[in-house]
């Protein structure tokens, strides 16, 4: 039995096993998860816009034990994560981390945001430290501008 507490460590093993077959297999899996999350979230974000994103990640912050700060402005929603529980667990692990672990997040979010008509930038900042900054914009030009200043923007499908 794999408890929900250990799912991200399982996820990490799936990523590594697929990566061993070729990076395109890992990317295909993220696309599949994106489809799943589009069904779950796209309509909610499309109808509710940035406040709906804020509401969703407020629940995730509490339920998944994240540490960080949520900000909602007229232009964007920001999730500044000071401790990502997902990468923290993958690093606190007797198995090795997948080097692309952080990209799974953008992997599903990008599909959801596109379907919702929103534009997300994920600055993972570091692949070995569990912190990052996510911003969601309505205006694609503002998202592009923000991305230019990002330290390590995630582009899983590039």
């Amino acid at each position, binding site marked *: 039995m794999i408890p*929900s507490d250990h799912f991200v460590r*399982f996820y990490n093993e799936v990523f590594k096993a697929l990566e061993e077959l070729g990076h395109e297999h890992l990317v295909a899996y993220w696309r599949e998860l994106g489809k799943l999350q589009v069904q779950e979230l796209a309509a909610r974000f499309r109808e509710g816009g940035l406040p709906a994103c804020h509401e969703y990640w407020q629940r995730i912050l509490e339920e998944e034990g994240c540490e960080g700060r949520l900000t909602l402005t007229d232009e964007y929603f920001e999730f500044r994560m000071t401790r990502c529980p997902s990468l923290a667990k993958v690093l606190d692990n007797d198995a090795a981390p997948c080097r692309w672990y952080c990209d799974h997040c953008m992997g599903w979010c990008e599909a959801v945001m596109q379907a919702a008509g929103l534009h997300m930038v994920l600055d993972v900042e570091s692949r070995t430290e569990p912190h990052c900054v996510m911003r969601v914009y309505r205006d694609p030009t503002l998202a592009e501008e923000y991305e230019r200043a990002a330290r390590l923007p995630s582009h899983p499908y590039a």
Partner: protein
Amino acid sequence: MRYCETGPVHLDFHRTLNATIGYLRTQYGYDFLDSVFRRMAHDVYRILHEALQRGDPEELIHHWTYFLDREGGGYELQREEKIIRLTVHRRPAIAYLQSRGLGVDPAFCRQTVVVNNALAEGTPFEIITEVLGEGRCIQTLRRRS
């Protein structure tokens, strides 16, 4: 315990686990799916495997009951002279998927069977997992004769 999580439980991970099992099964087949479960048993759960290799089943029993308790599972643990039997009446993962109206992948419970088998490899124990359906199973750990 090596991974002693506390705090809120995020049962929705079972939805992604279920979808992932279905994806790997249909795209890559059972052998590949099982290979990922075996990595989980041998690498992530290395401490559990090593404890069984030393002849100590208690790490695994604590692991089973701790996480079933955290997720609100229903189970009984029976200890006999050479057998420890975990009878799961209500597996929270299955109950969660059903509560969301989601179909449970036919290979979902394979995670328990294959992880248990892999944990027991190269140890003085065998673990027999009987999947009974509807979130019920019996996991019997006993010393090999």
